[in-house]
Structures are given as structure tokens and as C-alpha cells.
């Protein structure tokens, strides 16, 4: 049955949630046991230890251009949703399913081409 299969995935999901906590707990335990060296440094507490330094508040405004990217993301999100059931039946239906999907993706590729043409994807 389906729920049992997802139950196994759920166990993995739970472990994936717990996994990041393990090094933190181990770090604290080793600190308590005085096994962990302690060399505080401001760089260690930076948001990105190796990367561009974070600047300003994280609550600033986004540029309006990101919004088009977000809108395009939602459109292609819905496209992907339609392609998942397609992937399950593709093997049984052969070329009919193939051309259906080609047409579907092709129409949306037209939209992507239009977005490209209009420069909506460019950062000017």
C-alpha cells in the first residue's frame, strides 16, 4: 500500500530533520567535556564564513524584477506538476504520450522564449 511506502520515506525525513542537530549537540557535549578547543573569532560567526560579507538588514526591499522571476517560477511549477503523472504512464503509452508532452512543453517554451525576447530574464 502507498501509505506504508511513504511511511518509510517519513522515517528518512525525520532522520534528515534530526541530522543537523547531531553535530551541534556533539559540539556542545565536547565543549562540556573540555575536549573541544575554544578559539572564538568574529569571522567564525559571520553569516557566510567564506563569501561576500552580508551587508545591511535582511528585511530590505526586493527589486521588483525578482517578481517576474517568481511569477515565471509558479507557471513552470504548475507545468512540472502536470509532467509527474506523465512520467508514470509514459512507458505504457509510447509515442502518443511523447508528442503530447512535447506539445505541452513546447507551448510553454514559447512563453519562455517570449520572456527572453522581452528581456524579462535579463538583469539590466
Amino acid at each position, binding site marked *: 500500500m502507498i501509505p506504508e511506502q511513504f511511511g518509510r520515506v517519513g522515517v528518512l525525513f525525520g532522520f534528515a530533520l534530526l541530522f543537523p542537530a547531531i553535530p551541534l549537540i556533539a559540539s556542545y557535549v565536547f565543549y562540556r567535556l573540555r575536549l573541544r578547543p575554544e578559539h572564538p573569532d568574529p569571522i567564525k560567526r559571520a553569516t557566510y564564513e567564506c563569501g561576500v560579507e552580508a551587508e545591511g538588514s535582511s528585511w530590505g*526591499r526586493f527589486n521588483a524584477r525578482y517578481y517576474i522571476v517568481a511569477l515565471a517560477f509558479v507557471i513552470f511549477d504548475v507545468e512540472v506538476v502536470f509532467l509527474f503523472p506523465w512520467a508514470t504512464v509514459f512507458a505504457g503509452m509510447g509515442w502518443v504520450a511523447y508528442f*503530447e508532452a512535447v506539445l505541452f512543453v513546447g507551448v510553454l517554451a514559447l512563453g519562455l522564449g517570449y520572456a527572453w525576447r522581452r528581456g524579462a530574464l535579463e538583469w539590466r
Partner: protein
Amino acid sequence: MLRRLPLPAQIDRTITLGGLLASVVAAPYIVVLGVLFATGELSAPEFVFWLNAGLVVGGALAAVLLRHIVHAALGLVGASLGVAGIFLLLASEFLALVQVLVYGGGVTILLLFGLMMTRATDGPIVTDGAQKPFAFGAGIVLAGLFVGAMLDAEWDALNVTVVGFRELGIRLYRDFGIPFEVASLVLLVALIGAITIARREPAPGEDDSK
């Protein structure tokens, strides 16, 4: 304790405190559920259902009550994932997929972007407005509808039909091929409309590059 952990400064302030708060609330709930499950009071599906229901209610409360718009959106994502879990429990994989991809991902991002661009200031955003009493009234009416439908339903007479992923795909691609292609046209119109409306050409001389 937090200062002793190898965490970036921003993470240990907000996210770790929020996570600790959430675990303080969630841990007793999960422990109670686990005890009930271990003693046989709850069957395994019921156990999973109550976990998901807690996630939905907690996420919805966080989305409504938290003053910070990004934290509220995170709560909304949690509620969406919980609903997806309940769909999985009902063996509706496709609905769970839509719930995670479209609602948990797309709609939340869209909502967040809309709020961030229109009203964002340097600091937590207060979203209480003049619409608050109306929203409260609408919430009460909706809750009344749902509770009424719940009390009215005959739960024992429910006849569960599971529509699998494959049946859905076969129906969609063999029997409803044309409507499926029309859906792509609808998406195309939506994309072009979004670009046309959202993309305003910068006026000459206006610095739009920030």
C-alpha cells in the same frame, strides 16, 4: 549555551530561539502522541494524522499570529506540508504533490514577494489593517461552514476510492489529451500576462538599477 555553539551570529539569535520555542511547544505534543501510540491507544495512521494535524494547526497559528511576515510565511509552508501529509495518508499522492509544489513552493513565494515588494520596510511589518474585523468575520463563517459539514457528514458510510498516480496519468493523457494541451495554453497566457503587467519599462533617466 547558544553562544558556545559554532553557529553564525544571525542564526543563533532568531532561528535557534524560534526553533527552541517551537520544540518546547511541539515536544510535549509529540511525547504525548508517542505514549498514546506505544500504549496502543492510537493506531499508526492515527498517530501520523495527529502529527500532521498538529503541524497544520501550529503552522496556521504561526502564519496568523507571528508579526514578522517571513516567519508567518514559514508557518504557512509548514501548514501546507502538513496538509500534504494528510493527503498522503489518504493515498492521494497527486494532491500531496500539488500541495507541496504549488502551495508550499509557488504560492508562498509569490505571496512573500508581493508583500516584500509592496510594504517591506526595515523591520518587522505590522499587517493589522482596517480589514481585521472583516477577516475575523469571514474566518468565523468559514469555520462554521467546515464544522457544520463535519457534523453533518456520515463518517461510517464513507466509501474510499483511491485514484492512483497511474490511473490519473492514463485518464489525463489518453482520455483528456486536448484539455491537457489547452491547459498549456492557459499557462502560456498567464506567463505572457505576468510579464506584460509586472514588467514596467523604466522611464528615461530614472535609475532603476538598484
